């Protein structure tokens, strides 16, 4: 399926004057620059003895450096391919010598502008991404020459349509069942179509050789990505929100440079572990996040609250598509033939996914297993199930997950919010009460 530009008529676009667009863009951009500066400052304050290499990630947290690089790359003829969802195989983009960037939006204010097209009941990621597009706010979305969207939840599905008013959109449709006979072959054919679209845009043929090189490049990132997470199994050598930021930057940074910097970070953290040089006291309650994606910068509300709370908590793991899930699983290639590589690629982006768009008799078993494994191996003491309004699939799966986690005797707290700062005081009380509860359990 392909919503090409051949459909000339705009389907969703609303009338808005150029002057209003500019006013909104400038004021919101100034506001989020402030938010980024403030959050980075708070993260620095929260981890005074941080390794030097963290400064690189704090710098990248501000989108402007990467934006300049993308503009430069474009002027040299490179193509930027945005994606809204982690179902997009970045290997294919890299193999065509294009640049992948994730474009889903974590900014609060544009969500209100998104309301002009989609009703307020819709999840704020969608509304915010739409709003950002209306006013040309998001640097990565603006630079993208085309978008890959996955038809996972209802929001993502309709977002594809809306975005196709502005850019070429290539949809990929994951099957909702993983294990039927047709599932993998259907998904593989979706990716083949995507490959053809990427080749057409970039004018670069994806060959066995280039695909192998791309897979190997991502493998290096996978290894570091995993290493960073495995380090969080131990005593706390890195604050959770810092680790989350590092993870998230991989979604817009140059992957090779990210790998190099993240590796330096891991080496430093390993040293610190040996020296028992910790980021916070070892008895700090260990929290895992699961649920709706948490996207930098605005939506850092919850990580900030947890790690600045009294009593303090530390996020040691997450099951977020914006977090630990992103580069965790490598493409598992047996034979480096094109056919095999492509099948392995399709498997990688289908089988390990814990997205709640899947269902099975056991009820999204892979997500349950991921969470159980994390709780055990990462010694998680409490799980916060994070939901924003309109995130129907994650909200509906809560009971299934809660039942599974109850068996492990790990408390789960359902925290519902929206893209807003108004409820920070109320959420703070909830988070602190939950952490007090965990602390009381630990002290027994």
């Amino acid at each position, binding site marked *: 399926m392909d919503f090409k530009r051949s459909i000339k008529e705009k389907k969703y676009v609303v009338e808005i004057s150029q002057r209003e667009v500019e006013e909104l863009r400038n004021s919101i951009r100034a506001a989020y620059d402030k938010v980024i500066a403030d959050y980075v400052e708070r993260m620095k304050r929260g981890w005074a003895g941080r390794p030097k290499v963290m400064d690189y990630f704090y710098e990248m947290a501000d989108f402007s450096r990467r934006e300049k690089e993308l503009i430069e790359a474009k002027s040299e003829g490179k193509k930027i391919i945005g994606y809204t969802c982690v179902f997009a195989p970045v290997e294919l983009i890299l193999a065509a010598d294009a640049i992948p960037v994730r474009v889903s939006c974590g900014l609060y204010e544009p969500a209100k502008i998104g309301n002009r097209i989609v009703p307020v009941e819709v999840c704020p990621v969608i509304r915010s991404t739409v709003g950002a597009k209306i006013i040309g706010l998001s640097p990565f979305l603006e630079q993208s020459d085309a978008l890959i969207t996955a038809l996972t939840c209802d929001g993502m599905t309709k977002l594809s349509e809306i975005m196709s008013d502005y850019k070429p959109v290539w949809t990929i449709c994951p099957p909702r069942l993983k294990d039927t006979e047709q599932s993998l072959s259907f998904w593989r054919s979706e990716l083949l179509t995507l490959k053809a679209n990427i080749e057409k845009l970039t004018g670069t043929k994806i060959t066995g050789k280039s695909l192998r090189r791309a897979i190997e490049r991502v493998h290096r990132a996978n290894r570091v990505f995993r290493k960073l997470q495995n380090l969080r199994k131990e005593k706390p050598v890195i604050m959770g929100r810092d680790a989350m930021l590092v993870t998230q930057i991989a979604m817009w940074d140059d992957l090779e440079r990210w790998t190099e910097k993240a590796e330096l970070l891991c080496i430093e953290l390993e040293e610190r572990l040996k020296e028992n040089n910790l980021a916070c006291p070892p008895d700090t309650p260990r929290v895992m996040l699961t649920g709706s994606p948490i996207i930098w910068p605005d939506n850092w509300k919850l990580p900030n609250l947890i790690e600045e709370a009294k009593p303090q908590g530390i996020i040691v793991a997450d099951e977020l598509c914006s977090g630990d899930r992103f580069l965790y699983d490598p493409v598992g290639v047996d034979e480096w033939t094109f056919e095999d590589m492509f099948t392995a690629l399709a498997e990688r982006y289908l089988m390990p996914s814990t997205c709640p768009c899947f269902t099975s008799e056991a009820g999204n078993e892979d997500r349950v297993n991921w969470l159980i494994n994390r709780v055990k191996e990462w010694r998680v003491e409490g799980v916060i199930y994070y939901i924003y309004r309109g995130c129907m699939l994650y909200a509906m799966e809560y009971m299934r997950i809660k039942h599974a986690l109850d068996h492990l005797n790990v408390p789960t707290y*359902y925290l519902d919010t929206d893209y807003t700062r108004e*409820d920070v005081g*109320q959420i703070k009380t*909830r988070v*602190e*009460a*939950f952490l007090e*509860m965990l602390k009381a359990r630990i002290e027994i």
Partner: protein
Amino acid sequence: MIEGSQQYWRWREYHLVFPEKRPKQSSIITAGVDIGSVSSKAVIMVNGEIYSISIMRTGSSSPDSAKKVMEWALKDTELKLSDIHYIVGTGYGRVNVPMAHNTLTEIACHAKGANYIWGPTVRTILDVGGQDIKAIKCDEKGKVLSFLMNDKCAAGTGRGMEVLADLLKIPIEEMGAVSLNVDEEPEPVSCTCVAFARTEAMWLLRRGWTKEKVLAAYMRAMAIRMCNLLQRVGCESELAVTGGQSKNVGIISRVESLLGMKTLPMPEWEKDGRDPMAAGAIGAALFAKALHEKAKK
């Protein structure tokens, strides 16, 4: 008082001292200060027993409210603020209690306080405060096992009662009893929103409903909300109600009939200060004692 100038919403602010609990030389003196959105509570404990208690309306500034309610609790005692070994602040305004050595959330404090008021058999606590409702489950020591809180909206809380008291011209402390004075329980109001409470109540009055019936309908809707929250957290016996609404028989009796279970009886708090409305401050004072002892070790 002249008719018309009466402030129906005004509930009783009070201060009680129990001189028989007066401190000795070696006593551990602690205090809990609970700054809620509507009321502020302070409790002074001597060796973990209530010596003095005060409850008053929260003003526009949390630090001022904390100072005032604490001063009132110290009044007619032999104590000065500096005699108190350890103070814990709690409630919505907990970070703005200037004299507090430490803070804890009201959720932990209400569980601890309910455990003190009714003993170790309390398993579920319904705390209905000025602007929120909490359902808390705890163990025999008063430790929180799980909890739920309503969202940011103040529907079905103490603040809503104040609005109605004003509108219907019924003193707030009599509203519960008045609401039970109906032949038949009416349908609950469709919306317990504080902002719309006035509008909806007026509409019902214009339709010829009696004040009693309007109150019954509103309280029933509030009780349903509370029961939903309790059922979601998994309501287990014994159930205690804390916060200002624990004194509202109109709410309590409806919660009991909807759940098909009794709530723990209102203690004779005027004799010993075990006022469920002050459960948060009581719990905070108990935590203060534990924290003081821990710090001394």
